[in-house]
């Protein structure tokens, strides 16, 4: 279960603190899928990073299966992100020097790789329909294909929480449709909590739950 309680986040500038999140709370169970929508600059990505242990909140707590990542020392926090959280970024963020399979296996460098992980990676690659591109480099893939690889990478260690920041934002409608579908299917099949930040009403419409982030707070969509 993911529990966020009264999250506040401000950024300090020379001209004073800029509040981004102002008391965000939510509670999600495994297999839940939430779409967070809102205008640009409202802090949607910030919420994602806070939930994923990438940015500490100014106040408030986050708990994933009873673990507050921000109470952990840095190495344990990194391990938390590695094992329990999967990220899909708008910009796919694939490493150009690695093949599709290697990009998917990247998180296993931390967790420890063995033959089983390679098998799982291949399985995920198959599930996203890229078996025939398994040895290709990112430069040889389309935008949608890259995002599918990013999705497989995010799920390779079976995380409890999958966070996606505009996963279809840079894709054409058809690819976006494909990726969006895969996102939900895989998350559901893996029993992962899914939180998606998106501008896409189509993608948001697919999510069972939708919220809007406005003035730093989550409201019903």
């Amino acid at each position, binding site marked *: 279960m993911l529990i966020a309680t009264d999250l506040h986040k401000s950024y300090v500038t020379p001209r004073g603190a800029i509040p981004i999140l102002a008391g965000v709370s939510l509670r999600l169970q495994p297999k839940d899928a939430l779409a967070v929508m809102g205008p640009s600059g409202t802090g949607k990505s910030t919420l994602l990073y806070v939930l994923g242990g*990438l*940015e500490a909140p100014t106040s408030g707590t986050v708990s994933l299966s009873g673990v507050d990542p921000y109470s952990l020392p840095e190495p344990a926090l*990194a391990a938390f*992100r590695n094992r329990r959280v999967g990220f899909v970024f708008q910009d796919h963020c694939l490493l150009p020097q*690695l093949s599709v399979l290697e990009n998917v296996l*990247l998180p296993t*460098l*931390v967790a420890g*790789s063995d033959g089983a992980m390679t098998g799982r990676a291949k399985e995920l690659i198959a599930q996203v329909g890229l078996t025939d591109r398994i040895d290709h480099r990112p430069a040889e893939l389309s935008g949608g294909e890259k995002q599918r690889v990013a999705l497989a990478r995010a799920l390779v260690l079976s995380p409890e929480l999958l966070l996606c920041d505009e996963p279809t934002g840079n894709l054409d409608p058809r690819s976006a449709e494909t990726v969006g579908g895969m996102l939900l299917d895989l998350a559901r099949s893996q029993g992962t909590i899914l939180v998606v930040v998106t501008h896409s009403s189509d993608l948001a419409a697919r999510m069972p739950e939708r919220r809007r982030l406005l003035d730093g707070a989550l409201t019903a969509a």
Partner: protein
Amino acid sequence: MNAGVFVRRSLSHYWRSHAAVVLGVATAVAVLGGALLVGASVRESLRSLVGRRLGAVTHAVSFPSFFREGLAADAERGEGLRACPLVSLRGVVTTEASGRRGAGIFVYGVDSRFFAFHGQPDPGLGAREAILSPALADELLAAQGDTLLVRVERTEDVSPATLFGRKDDLGRTLRLKAREAPTAAWREFSLRPGQQEVRAVFAPLALLQKALDRGDQANTLLLAEPASAPGLAERAVQEALRLEDLGVRVRPLAERRALSVESTRALLTDPVAEAARRAAAALSRPSFEVLTYLANGIRHAGREVPYSLVAGLDEAGLRAVTGLAPADPEAIVLSDWTARDLGVRAGDPIELDYYVWREEGALETKTATFRLAGTVPLSGSSADPDLTPSYPGITDSLHLSDWDPPFPVDLARIRPRDEDYWRDHRTTPKAFVPLARAQSLFGHRLGRVSSLRVLLPAEEPASEASTRYASGLRGSLDPTAFGFFVEPVRARGLEAATGSTDFGEYFTYFSFFIVVSALLLAAMFFRLGIEQRVAEIGLLQALGFSSRRVLSLSLREGAVLAALGSLLGVPLAAGYAALVLLALRTVWRGAVGTDALRLHVAGAPLVAAAVGGALVALLAVAFTLRAFRRGSVRSLLGGELPPPRQRAAAGKLPLALGLSALAVAVGLLAAGAAGRVPRAGAFFGAGACLLAAGLLLFWRWLRGHARRPVESLAGLGLRSATQRPGRSLLCVSLVAGATFIIVSVGAFRHRDENVRDPRSGAGGYPLFAESLLPVVYPLDTPAGREALGLPEGDGVFARVSVARFRLRPGDDASCLNLYRPGQPRILGATVAFREQGRFRFAATADATATANPWTALDTKLADGAVPAIADLNTITYVLHKKVGDEVVVEGGRGPVRLRLVAALSGSLFQSELIVGESDFLALFPDDAGYRFFLLEAPKDAEPALVAELETRLGDQGLDVAASADRLAAFAAVENTYLETFQALGGLGLLLGTVGLGAVLLRNALERRREMALARAVGFRRSQLRIVILAENLLLLVAGLGTGALSAAVAVLPAVLERGGHMPVLPIATLLLAVAGAGILASALAATWVSRFPLLRSLRAD
């Protein structure tokens, strides 16, 4: 998938930026390894030279006198040791036809044994032929059949330092025919290590022996000791050595039932006399000592017996010879012949007139008074001509009037009865005095006993006793006390080949800026590469890689790059070393004086450079990665570089430090100008503080300028420099530091000085001279000039002042000698010279001697060390000592500790150590006369003086040269090192400047979106170029200006001391070249970036 795969993929994908890193590391390793290889190559070249020139020789015996040729055969004894006798002398050779002259050469008397010893074919030297070493042949332009006049020193057994030693005609000239010979290793034979070319003449041994009246004798023994028998050479020679080889003989006097122990040098040294006494005591034989001398006259009441031998005997001797044992220390016993001639009786006063030879080159007549104690018959024990040693020219003459002594004899004083005496009694003493009195009057530093008489019992045959006694005496004598040493010349030569100058170390220093520039550029390019992948770092952290793990992956990449760079640098190191050695043989030959240096590739320097370079590169890489720990994951994911450290007080600290450094600089300048602290140190310290202040204030300016409004294109460029202040400061620091060193080093180039100034390096002596043969008479007194055959009157010599020095030849102790001097040249300075207080000193051990540091040589050191003075350059750079330290040298009778009590500054004396004359004579008793001279004459008289001296004293082998030339030769070495440093430093600076351009290019690439945006809003390409150029010019000018200004302050006193001269042109040229290269590099970078396609740049990721 594992870390190794990840690293390999990254290396492969980003090979372009990695290539620059690898090249940077390779350059650093190549230069560092090359510098170390230069050192190893120089050492190995010098070692090879030693081996080539020694041939088969492992040990050698050089003796101040001569020994049996047969010693060689006796030493061999069939144990694998090989020995070869030869005569080895210093000489002067002249080609008769052309008059070309070569001084300071070696003359070797050799025969077939020499060539067999070296395993070389015997060229079959004719009886009057000579073969020259290749260098000497070239120097003299000698061709087959040319007549050569070879003049060598004729070493007399009786020292010229004594009354009875010859003082003139101390050389012999041989007329030989030059013979061409094929190239052979033995033609480069030399026992002393040195990189200068061998200048030697090989002449027939028999001819040289005959010319020197040395029969079957030699003065040098070459030994080849098998490696399996260490110590054999010394042992074998010691066992084969006989008394006669040491100049001691035991003569049986059968009729007198005695043995006479004598020396070929006419005097027994105190240790030998003592050993002889003990040897007699060991056989339970009584003995007595004898000192026989020549009295010019024995007088009483106006009557005189001229030219009479007087024997000093100890109590036992007096009793044995005269039957009397007078207790009166002033007693004299006359033969009855003498007593009758003088008409004296017991108790009458008797006067003895006698000569004393003063070693400063004058004969003195003295008179001693005695009291007649009695007379003895001229028969029996008191008629003993064997009490007198052999004095060539005196004792071997048939008539008194035939005497040819080395002192004046008035033949008019010789009466017929004196000739009759000589005919009948020869060298029988006419008078006997107590030994103690005789020693006080006639004793010499070389000995106070002319013989020891060992008395034998009647039943003992003298010949058998002689053999037994001689064996016992020989066993108790230490040959080293005679100056007979078995020297391990090969081992010492190889040790000397390690050199006093560590070229590896020097070229590492010289190449310092190249190495630093290359490593900094490598680190910079690595960082630029990482900055290009900042989003990747963010991603890895987002995926759960800890910052330590991310750092580890980057370090692994860096390690591979460092390793690749090192591997690439290793072969390049050999190339760099080869280039440097080529330069040392050509344009930088002034530093080494030889073209014999060759590349020797050794593993250790290359491994050291590869490992060292890789480690330093890795450290630099690790340092650059530290910054990425600061950035947030989000900003890294967004491609944002971590911001520089923002500390509230960061701006104030550099300002405070900079102003403090400025204040310290001003304070040092004031203190130096006021003389409160040494000027050179004050100004150099001020310059360094100015450099630091300049950099700190520049840093402060960078931080402060970051927020200033931009009002021009140039201002936009200046603002760009503030975006990465660390990078900008690094570039400026590198340029400023290199500029500071290069400019300040240039100020220390030696300039000519006024050699007539008594405080100059020449001490006010514009000329100096060195002679092959010892000159015993002073050059600047009428009596001395008369004795030397120099002209009198108001000629040039009337206006000359001469300082004379004793000289012990040895290894050149100056920077001109690449070998470590094992046995440095030593000069003995007279009291008269020391009292003048000339020359300039850099340091003294005794503060009380600062008025005239030469007086430190008069000090008697309690621990037995001998005070010595040397030039500071010699002390510091050759001997690696300081004032107060000791140097151990081989004296004439064993090792001696010389303590450095003062240091001269930039003097003529850089090739030798100087001791006081009395100490010199104690250290080297066999040396007589003077061989080194400093001459002061009016400038207009110099040419005439030189011509007169070289003509009239040409037979002495006298060579006169200008002191300025000698100083220039020393300065040339140092100036060459400075030029080398400047050249390589300039290369490093150039590399840094080109790298600066590359960094600028990288900066521009990073901001190409900005550039594209600027163009999109209307900036022209030319305007963008101005922006980039402005940034680079700022850094270049800041670096050059800070460095040059600081250096100018630092070297101001040195420049003023040199009369305001500074090699401005080469320094300015270098700096202009650097500035030009920097401007060109940045112009190219600016032009390239400004031509990027607009849209592609706007979309660049």
